[in-house]
């Protein structure tokens, strides 16, 4: 630890830093899903729509691959946050 910019925040929703993401990679994460499960990066309100590309680039850099070779995290519904009363689908 203690590398340059380690305290830089990458996932703003969950306040996950570059250092935490690097540590998750050190402990075996090789794709965005692996980082997400270990750190919560990409599990906040925006569901990784802001940080995922950054996470992909960080993994690529750390393990010496191209960003396009790093699997993005699994897509999960809903596409954007959805109010429960809307999903419920009835008028009160």
């Amino acid at each position, binding site marked *: 630890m203690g590398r340059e910019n380690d305290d830089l925040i990458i996932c703003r929703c*969950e306040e996950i830093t570059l250092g935490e993401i690097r540590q998750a990679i050190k*402990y*075996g*994460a*090789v794709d965005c*899903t*692996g980082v997400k*499960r*270990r750190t*919560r990066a990409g*599990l*906040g*309100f925006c*569901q990784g729509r802001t940080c995922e590309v950054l996470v992909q680039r960080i993994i690529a850099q750390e393990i010496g691959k191209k960003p396009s070779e790093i699997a993005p995290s699994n897509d*999960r*519904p*809903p596409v954007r*946050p*959805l*109010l*429960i*009363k809307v*999903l*419920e*689908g009835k008028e*009160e």
Partner: protein
Amino acid sequence: MKKRYDVIIIGGGVIGCTLAYFLSRASIDVALIEKGDIASGTSSGCDGNILISDKQPGVDTFLTRESQKLFEQLSFDLPYDFEYMQRGSLLTIESKEEMEIASSFVEQQKKDGYPFRIISLDTLKAQEPHVADDLLGAVEIDCDSAVNPMLFSFATAKKAGENGVDILKDCSVRNINLGKSGGVKEVVTDLGTFRTEKVVNCAGVWAPEIGKMVGINIPIKPRQGQLLVTETTFQVVKRKVMEFGYMMAKFGSGEYKRDVSPDLEKLGIAMVIEPTMSGNFLLGSSRAFVGFNKTISIEVMQGIVRRMVRFFPALRTVNIIRAYAGLRPYVEDHLPIVSAVDRVPGFFIAAGHEGDGIGLAPITGRIMQELLLDKEPPVPFEHLSFSRFK
């Protein structure tokens, strides 16, 4: 990586990782083989409950209670945080019939020495102000706890690795070769062939595939469940809350039927809400036999929130940010298989925990550890034997 191991564990979910950790404290050579990443199957498609509240009286409750004690110990022993919390749980009661069934259930559990009690609506409201006004009360269980299942799997795997277990990820098992006497001899994998005389099948819903490699039929099938995640919001609940009718959805209901639509009944929907350390709430639950399909369906999402707002109307103004599905390794009698296999010396099974794999992982690991080391397991385990299936 070695050429020969004393024990090879197949499967890096919560069961395999916990067993790896326990075995790592003995002086034997152990490898854990996982086809993907640690906790990438059912152990990341679930919630993190360690509940005796939703167990059948008897062995089911006993094993979970023993597991709860082990989790508490592990929260001190393991150097990595896994968000252990002991906050208890509540089963909401919504009808007179449920109250009757709940009362005899609570009496039975109290007689067996477990901390169950029935609380009135007023007491319930004082604890959980957001519950609906027309409930009759709840069953309260103080000893129930929860963990983050992924962090727990990572913590046990990491510590096992530090203690000398070889954790081989992205490595599929292709075959298991038996020796002339019919016992386990070799495990053939993507990373080569390893000699071993003991294999533990911790492959959960994939355990039958591994069983086929040694010619046995393991009666586990995937029972899909879907969960919704809310945004971080006000404190909807302080502890785990589920409807008493959850038990009926899980075990089949006998005479009593909940007052729900046929659709909800068909989708196996029962209300469960779990607070998490991160401030989000997990909402469930559903049950369906749809093979290995993990697709989220809008019908189930809708069914879950409709049942949810019946108990917590205040949730209507909260956002869902995510939905996911997992596959429970279901066994018909709702008990896991933690056992040697008589026909194949050296072949062991620790799988089939349905929705209780997280909760039962430590006691499963302890039983299996002793079986593998030819010692007496810490609790009776004959109900979990593979020989109970014909």
